[in-house]
């Protein structure tokens, strides 16, 4: 008999319009690291949310140590010693580290919080597992890596025995990932059982004992890591081999389109500068990738580059024109298009229809308005053209409210809009975030197309795989500075990781274009 600590049997969960989990089984052994593999949208998070009590399944049972349990809320999960590190951290930004750890599991005396006692326990746990945190720092002031340690400490503080990690490596450097895997192994050695959600095959091969694969909500099977390899896993995950390389023809870059010189941007969070003296250039027919860990100034840099924020020093030149002080629209007209980092915050107006969103950058052009009156028929015709050309799937065509569209199609709509502007510079920030493999491949092919049309592309990415495969040149950003410049075939992922973590830096006066 296997020693299963958790068994999820026949789990089915429907959402409006989709079956997120369809008769899925998952059995977790005591003391194992069990990977849950599947691409974005395969139903991994849903399944884990069911286990964590955030969702109730429409059908299926959950057994713990062979006995059926009902998990109706995170409280129930907590009582069963199930803990979870969510992909998007569930931390209250204005609270301190300590307050976040004790939240929901507070101890009190005479109704008052006993923070001192909690602090002692947290410090002991932190020491014990090498999870360094400052208990009195506010979440909004600490790094993403430390925030993840807070999330892990939250589980340990609650004495959880079953630990769920939802895409924990997405925000880490290769070195930090190694560290995290070490911590996961030490948990397993203590007899804790670990569920590790990911879509990265090499991580599974490195750390997991077994792996359950989901595709489009269905169970594809559970395999022993010893008996498999990445090719077999990828076939299970997407039903075919994933082409890790992007087809690109050799191209000699042309003239310089974007030139950034000594750009400095003040931070909104603290008194220091978020971007410090950044200089580089992007030429026609070239994809330059700005790599780095989240929160190292990329967002601020792009805001300043596209005119959403002001720079406090330096100069931005586009096709020889100084646009440092230009407005957002001024820069757009001068030749810049922008696929933003957050498609819901910046990229789309979710309560507008698809057609209104597709003209978001050009509704004011003569083709779409006449003396301030919108030419409805032209807008519609243009939208229909883009929808067909870029294969955007939307239930009611141009009249679909973008809020009701899937993430992949929302992103396709943005890409269609920005590509069709025909600008000489395309700034794409994490354009494939949260998308499934098919959509990722499509977006990548469009970015390469822009390059092949001899446009300049600045790609900002956190995904090392994307960085290595798509770019022609890589710039690494650390704490607001460019600390390294590489060609993708000349550098290893490990090497990049050292630069991303600030462990190494390069003097690049010579390469400054």
């Amino acid at each position, binding site marked *: 008999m296997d020693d299963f600590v958790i068994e999820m049997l026949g789990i089915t969960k429907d959402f409006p319009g989709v079956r997120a989990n369809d008769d899925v089984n998952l059995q977790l052994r005591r003391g194992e690291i069990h990977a849950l593999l599947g691409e974005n949208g395969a139903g991994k998070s849903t399944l884990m*949310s069911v286990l*964590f009590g*955030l969702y109730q399944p429409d059908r299926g049972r959950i057994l713990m140590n062979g006995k059926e349990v009902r998990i109706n*809320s*995170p*409280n129930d*999960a*907590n009582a069963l010693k199930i803990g*979870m590190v*969510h992909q998007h951290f*569930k*931390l*209250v*930004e*204005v*609270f301190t580290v300590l*307050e*976040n750890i*004790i*939240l*929901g*599991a*507070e101890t*009190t005396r005479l*109704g*008052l*919080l006993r923070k001192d006692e909690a602090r002692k326990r947290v410090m002991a746990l932190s020491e014990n597992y090498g999870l360094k945190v400052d208990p009195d720092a506010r979440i909004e002031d600490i790094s993403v890596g430390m925030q993840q340690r807070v999330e892990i400490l*939250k589980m340990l503080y609650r004495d959880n025995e079953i630990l769920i990690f939802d895409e924990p490596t997405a925000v880490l450097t290769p070195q930090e990932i190694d560290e995290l895997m070490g911590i996961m192994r030490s948990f397993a050695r203590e007899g804790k059982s670990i569920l590790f959600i990911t879509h990265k095959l090499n991580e599974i091969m490195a750390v997991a004992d077994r792996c359950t694969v989901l595709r489009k909500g269905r169970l594809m099977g559970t395999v022993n890591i010893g008996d498999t390899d990445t090719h077999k896993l990828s076939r299970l995950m997407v039903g075919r081999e994933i082409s890790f390389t992007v087809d690109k023809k050799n191209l000699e870059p042309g003239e310089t389109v974007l030139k950034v010189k000594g750009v400095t941007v003040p931070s909104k969070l603290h008194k220091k500068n978020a971007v410090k003296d950044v200089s580089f250039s992007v030429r026609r027919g070239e994809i330059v990738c700005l790599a780095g860990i989240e929160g190292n100034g990329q967002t601020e840099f792009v805001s300043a580059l596209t005119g959403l924020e002001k720079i406090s020093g330096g100069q931005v030149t586009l096709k020889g024109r100084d646009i440092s002080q230009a407005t957002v629209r001024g820069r757009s007209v001068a030749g810049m298009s922008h696929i933003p980092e957050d498609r819901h915050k910046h990229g789309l107006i979710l309560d507008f229809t698809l057609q209104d969103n597709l003209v978001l950058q050009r509704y004011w052009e003569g083709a779409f308005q006449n003396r301030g009156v919108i030419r409805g028929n032209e807008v519609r015709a243009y939208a229909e053209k883009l929808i067909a050309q870029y294969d955007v799937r939307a239930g009611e065509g141009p009249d679909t409210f973008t809020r009701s569209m899937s993430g992949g199609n929302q992103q396709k709509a943005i890409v269609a809009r920005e590509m069709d502007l025909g600008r000489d510079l395309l700034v794409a920030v994490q354009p494939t975030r949260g998308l499934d493999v098919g959509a990722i491949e499509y977006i990548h092919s469009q970015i390469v197309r822009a390059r092949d049309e001899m446009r300049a592309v600045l790609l900002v990415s956190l995904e090392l795989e994307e960085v290595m495969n798509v770019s022609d040149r890589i710039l690494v950003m650390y704490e607001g500075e460019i600390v390294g410049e590489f060609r993708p075939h000349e550098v290893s992922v490990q090497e990049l990781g050292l630069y991303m973590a600030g462990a190494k830096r390069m003097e690049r006066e010579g390469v400054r274009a």
Partner: protein
Amino acid sequence: MIILADILNATVLFAVPLILVALGGMFSERSGIINIALEGIMIVGALVSCLFLSAVDKSGFGPANPQLSMLLAILIASVSGMVYSALLAFASINLKANQTIGGVALNMLAPAFAIVLTWAIQGQGNTTIFIPTWTRISAESIGVTDISTFLPRFLFKSFYLTTPAALLLLLASILVLYRTRLGLRLRSCGEHPQAADSVGINVYKMRYIGVLISGFLGGIGGLAFTLAAGSGFQSQVAGYGFLALAVMIFGNWKPLNIFLASLLFAFFKILGSYSSSIPFLPQFKGIASSEYIYMMLPYVVTMIVLILSSKKSRAPKAEGIPYDKGMR
């Protein structure tokens, strides 16, 4: 000096409703619900407690046990405020309605209902409920006979049980918000309800508690306003519910700052009524009806302070956004 004592006494008197109601708004917003209905809640609290005071006055119980009756009136005001605020909680938490719209409806309902009810009780056209004089705590009642000196004058010129009650509730608010489990959980729901939910906190329950506390404090605030206004309950609270919202923002959603902001606002409000007896204040002799200039003063001061402090202002992050359990 006596004038100063009078001014300070009146300042405290008018600051008390602001403190109470703004603290109420703070609890509601810290839990994530914008409570624009404070005005209506005040009116309901004032209506019910004033009806109670007038009833015990007639029955003779009031004059015989003045401060016990006041205590009961405070309790009644708080309970009625809570009941009324539950309507807001239901609309904005259970129905996920736009919180502003629900608040507007309740603000409209309360004064109209008060008029209709006082008509029905006191007869057509009699819309004022008079406050019995025994509700005041006089200096004589605790043995002080001479109120011509500063301290007794400051304390007792107009002194009601609501003042010490407000101070106690202020201290309790600080304690609850920052030192208790309830406070920590409540604040987490106003900042990041998904995070609260993920550690097993019932967001709906916390938000209900936040709104009900605002009803509790707002109801008492309504009574305190009516006592301060001095001319009885007339189915309105002169926009004090909205002023309390301003004071709350001005106080940056923090109890102590709210306390200070209330005092400041009340002081500038009172200043106008005493301007003619304070020699160094400008008298605007050449201007007709210059009293209106002083009436403007508290609003102008609040605006200036709000503009100056706007950079530091930080509202609870999730306020105004209905929480949907299905949407995490």
